[in-house]
């Protein structure tokens, strides 16, 4: 009851400003809109770790001396970096997903949801950007340091694990945070394949209610807030990991 009163008070106040938030008092539209916020946050929370882990693996492959590891990843990075995320998503959902459905004998057996495709496409797209950033960081590690590690008997994997990645991660962190911010914004492409994130929910409401301005204000504020948090966490990690005197 308390909640209802707050909602109607808000609608009333906004109406005085000339803003139409009446849909909040309805059942279906208010529901998909509220769920939209949660879905966006969930999407961001799942896609960020996916992009980071895959980005790291990609970077390791890219800098490897074995062509059978680096060549396919190089090809994928070029493809995903150079094509629009929206096109990739539409292609994945409308073409790849259909192919998968046919292979497993019908759509009812296909476990891949639109949500999965958004995580996969956006996650891998941003992973490609991360990989390039980390590769730059790995290549920036002084060769004398790697030689020293080799001299101490480190295997190539150990050099990667204990020397190159820790240093590369620090120097590529600003670029990675930029990548994560664009990841948050990219999750909105989900609306094209009916993943009920917040832009999708807003489109569903404003095509019926024609209150585009009202919902746009909320959308902008919401994404600003998420990315403000992402940027803050990023600079906090940067400070935490800084090596005094090393300049990173």
């Amino acid at each position, binding site marked *: 009851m308390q909640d209802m009163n707050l909602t109607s008070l808000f609608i009333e106040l906004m109406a005085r*400003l*000339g*803003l*139409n938030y*009446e849909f909040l008092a309805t*059942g*279906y*539209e208010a529901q998909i809109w509220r769920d939209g916020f949660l879905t966006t946050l969930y999407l961001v929370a799942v896609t960020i770790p996916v992009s980071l882990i895959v980005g790291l693996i990609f970077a390791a492959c890219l800098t490897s001396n074995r062509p059978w590891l680096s060549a396919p990843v190089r090809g994928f990075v070029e493809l995903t970096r150079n094509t629009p995320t929206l096109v990739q998503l*539409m292609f994945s*959902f*409308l073409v790849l*997903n*259909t192919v998968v*459905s046919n292979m497993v004998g*019908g*759509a*009812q057996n*296909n476990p891949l949801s*639109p949500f999965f495709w958004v995580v996969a496409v956006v996650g891998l797209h941003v992973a490609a950007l991360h990989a390039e950033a980390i590769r730059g960081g790995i290549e920036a590690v002084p060769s004398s340091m790697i030689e020293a590690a080799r001299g101490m008997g480190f295997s190539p994997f150990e050099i990667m694990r204990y020397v190159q990645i820790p240093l590369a991660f620090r120097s590529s962190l600003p670029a990675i945070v930029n990548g994560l911010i664009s990841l948050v914004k990219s999750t909105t492409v989900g*609306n*094209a*394949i*009916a993943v009920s994130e917040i832009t*999708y929910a807003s*489109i*569903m409401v*404003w*095509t*019926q*209610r*024609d*209150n*585009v*301005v009202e919902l746009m*204000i909320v959308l902008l504020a919401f994404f600003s807030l998420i990315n403000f948090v992402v940027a803050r966490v990023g600079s906090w990690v940067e400070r935490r990991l800084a090596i005094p005197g090393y300049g990173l």
Partner: protein
Amino acid sequence: MSAKLTAKIVFGLALSITALSGTQASADSTLERIKGRGKLTVGLILSGAPFGFIDPKTQEQKGYNVDIAKALAADLGVELESVTVTPPNRVQFLQQGKVDILIANMQYTEERAKVLDYVPTPYDRAGGAAVVRKDSGLKDWADLKGKPVCISQGSNYAQPLAEEYGAIVKGLPSQPESLLALQGGNCVAAVHVGATVGLLLQDRADEWKDFAIPFPNELIPSDSVIWLRKGEADTQKALDESVKKLHASGKLLELAKANRLLNTKYLEEENKKLSAK
């Protein structure tokens, strides 16, 4: 950052928003302006035959909505200027004065009538039809309960499908994507304006041979009306007379048949009713 500054910023924002939304309440000079310019600017949606599409051969805009716009302009004695709009931008185009009226597949709803004015006499009545796989065994709207149903993001079928029939609604950007999702098995049904999908199944029978429109009724048949800015009584009156004239003379029915609208029952009734007067 002091509290005073924050208050100032908030106040400034609020003020600019009020100013923005206040623009719609201007005196009705639209009809005079239309006649003065000699041009009626109409916002049209070109989302597919039979309502509005671009002819691939001649690059011309065609369809029932386009023809109505032409007929209205002719009746007002002015030229037609058409502007293509989409569901998310159509109302903004109207309110910002980029177009005078909208003939954009917009059915009458109470919510819309709060924001916009409309021409009381509808130019069509349209409801939703569900395209489903022939072997799906779906017989009526109630069978869609708990199943994924594709629609296009501008349509007003989401709410009745979700609330009345308990379907899981998936809104794709437009009809082609929705139908592709249906073919790919991502939804069990695609619900769109009856006339559009009916024509599609006829015209591309080969590609759609596994699909049908089996439900006996259309979903929420509602009146398609012309929308205009609030408070433009003169324009509203002039257009209402024009639409009535087009009904009475049988011109609308003729246009509907020429554009192959499958269900012209409503138009025939209106024609009889208005031509009897």
